């Protein structure tokens, strides 16, 4: 019995233990891995995935899924790179307006796509897996058509965002570090997500819908509206994450956002979000994204063959899902009722 509890606690902490193991292992292989600068980079690089995964959590919580988030990033990037060039600039000549405009284009793209998903799922009753799989291909096709599959260059004003920092107060040997824009945006999304999910009526109703949609209907909740809103929120986050990724990369090719949906869903599951709805938090996906990013950074540090990367990340994802399944089954088994006191010995 107490053995069971111990195993269960270990399983729950498994992703955290895995994180520690990965950090220690790569640290032993290369001690520069443990530097402040490296961790800062890891978190910055994890930010886009983490932002997308927070949005994905809203959709997973209601037992739906959105496979189109990576494609949304690519469409947003195409629109921004093609129409927000210095030459055209949507007619806006002031370069200071370009970054807010491009953020707006990204976010609007995501929210429109999310709204379409929400409508298709709620009014046509099409499974979100199919609906968003279809838009994954349609949106990638659209973006390739818009960009002619050329590399997309962002204007300098947009790329520069990536170097901004606020609160430059952490003094290190080389310079004073602050909070980079990517992390600031992540923090804002994280905090808003947490507030909405935990402390608003809407957020608690999301959990109710995810637990039992029929019961939610009977309780008089506006289920369709809640489902619709979750897809829009997911699209919103996909747009924000796409913007952050675009500023970080500066120029992107036709594989921008490709298969990102898998990393995003994996980050959420690693963070304890259930694929069956009703269970999950917003800090989990952030942790999951950092875990995935740390692994990739470690592999880069030890000069691993790039073809090994997908193998290792896939192994981690597999482990996370396996652990989750094991945990669920153990919880079920332990909830087996005890009828009589246990005899000694």
């Amino acid at each position, binding site marked *: 019995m107490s053995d069971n509890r111990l195993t269960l606690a270990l399983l729950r902490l498994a992703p955290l233990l895995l994180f520690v193991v990965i950090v220690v292992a790569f640290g032993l292989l290369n001690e520069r891995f443990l530097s402040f600068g490296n961790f800062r980079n890891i978190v910055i690089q994890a930010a886009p995935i983490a932002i997308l995964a927070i949005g994905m959590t809203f959709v997973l919580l209601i037992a739906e899924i959105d496979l189109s988030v990576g494609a949304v990033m690519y469409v947003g990037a195409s629109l921004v790179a093609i129409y927000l060039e210095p030459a055209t600039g949507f007619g806006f000549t002031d370069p200071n307006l370009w970054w807010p405009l491009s953020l707006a284009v990204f976010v609007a793209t995501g929210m429109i796509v999310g709204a379409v998903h929400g409508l298709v799922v709620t009014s046509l009753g099409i499974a979100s897996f199919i609906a968003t799989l279809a838009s994954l291909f349609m949106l990638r096709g659209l973006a390739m058509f818009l960009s002619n599959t050329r590399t997309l260059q962002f204007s300098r004003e947009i790329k520069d965002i990536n170097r901004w920092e606020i609160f430059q107060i952490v003094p290190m040997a080389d310079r004073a570090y602050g909070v980079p824009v990517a992390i600031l945006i992540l923090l804002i999304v994280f905090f808003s997500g947490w*507030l909405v999910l935990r*402390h608003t009526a809407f957020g*608690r109703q999301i959990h109710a819908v995810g637990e039992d949609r029929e019961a939610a209907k009977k*309780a008089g909740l506006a289920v369709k509206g809640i489902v619709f809103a979750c897809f829009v929120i997911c699209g919103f986050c996909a747009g924000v994450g796409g913007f952050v990724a675009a500023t970080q990369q500066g120029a992107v090719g036709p594989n921008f956002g490709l298969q990102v949906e898998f990393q995003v869903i994996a980050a959420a599951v690693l963070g304890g979000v259930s694929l069956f709805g009703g269970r999950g938090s917003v800090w989990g996906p952030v942790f999951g994204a950092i875990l995935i990013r740390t692994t990739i950074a470690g592999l880069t540090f030890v000069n691993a063959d790039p073809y090994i990367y997908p193998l290792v990340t896939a192994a981690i994802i597999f482990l996370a899902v396996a652990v989750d399944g094991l945990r669920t089954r153990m919880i079920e088994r332990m909830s087996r*009722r005890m009828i*009589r006191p246990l005899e000694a010995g």
Partner: protein
Amino acid sequence: MSEARPLLSVSGLAKSFFGVRVLHGVDFDVFPGEALGLVGENGSGKSTCVNIIGGVLKPDAGEMSLNGAPYHPLSPKGAASAGIAFIHQELNLFGNLSIEENLFIERLPKHRMLPLIDRRAVRARAVQLLREVELDLPPTTPVARLSQGERQLIEIAKAISMNAKVVIFDEPTTSLTRHEVDRLFTIIARLKARGIGMIYISHALDDVMAVCERITVLRDGAVLGGGPRDEFSLARIISLMVGRAIDTIYPERMVPPRADPVLRVEGLAQPGVAKDITFDIKEGEVVGLGGLMGSGRSELARMIFGLDAFSRGRIIVGDKVLANPTPREAIDAGMAFLTEDRRGEGLLMDFSIAENTILAALGRFARAAGMLEWRKVVTESKTMAGRVHLSTDRVVETRAKHLSGGNQQKIVIGKWLMRMPKLFILDEPTRGIDVGAKQEVYRIINALVEAGSAVLLISSEIEELMGLSDRILTIYRGELTGSFARAAFDREILMGAVTRPPRAEAG
């Protein structure tokens, strides 16, 4: 009492589905501070009635008034705001949310300034409501941790919080322990004291007699009798419901049990669940297993069938020794198991009768290359439909979900009969089904044992055990406390044996 004005008055209620009339002008009144027992067989129109009152269905004709004013609910939400609370058999709660969140999920109070939940207001109101239903739990407890009875109290608290004038209970006691039932009845008495009226639907007629001041009996969508409880006896209610007298409810069995044991359970033990359980069941014998809910009776059945593991002992079916059975081995050895939860475990609701019937014996209907022989499927499932007295023989066209509870149960039984089991474990085979369907289940059991099979029957109803069993074993906290032959059946002694540990009896 007669001069009191009815709280809810229903008159001439009529409803048809697809041209079939299911309600023919039903009248009844619910008075403040009283419970109206609505009884009748499955399909008699009780659910249609309360669904109309609860705003789920619209009546074709008839009038309803609430507190003297005309009442025409357009939706469940409309009914709720008019003061009708509907406590469904399947409770409407969310396991992943806390008690307080469940109480107010559709109207969580907002903070004065911010668009956030006013946690303090929620807490205060939840604490007060929990006190009213005598539930001593912190309001932040996740509902997933509550027992079925505690969850029901949460639903009642919710009804109170919505200022319900009339509370509809649909089979509230089926999944409660006796203790929880008593507590529920205390709370119902308190609701009455506050002037709330109730409609109480149940197949447990004892409960109806205990709780309700008035009784209305429905049969085939019409009121056959209604009035104060004192005008009714159990026998009269049942004969009104069924349309015949009930002395023949347990059919006579012609063939006595044989000597050869079909099942032997030897020293079965599992820490915390079962202690040293030994018994056997002979060919043609019905052995009843009596015990309170949570006594380990279902767990014992699950272990015998290989669904749960046990640490010591063995199970012998015929000449096969199963030291560590899996359900597959148990089925191969000739066992069949009707679980408590037919919706969850026994039936595929969207599948036809035929598809459900052949499920446990698919191999018999397979041709080369695994193709099903449909003609054989149809003829054999029609035969089975006849054997279990199913209400329809349209086995291909009818889906399981469109049948009444009694008929669904018959399909599950028929499914297992297809394999001609040597030992049939029946866990609460008649729970939630009406008297007529019950009797048909009893006949099926009799036919089965007369053909030489053995039956292990688990039931919460002592009468049912006494009426059907050749022998009754009693279980208390995972330990067998007695074995009684038919001649020694006595209600009092059996009740004693299921509520007391064996040593207390000796001492």
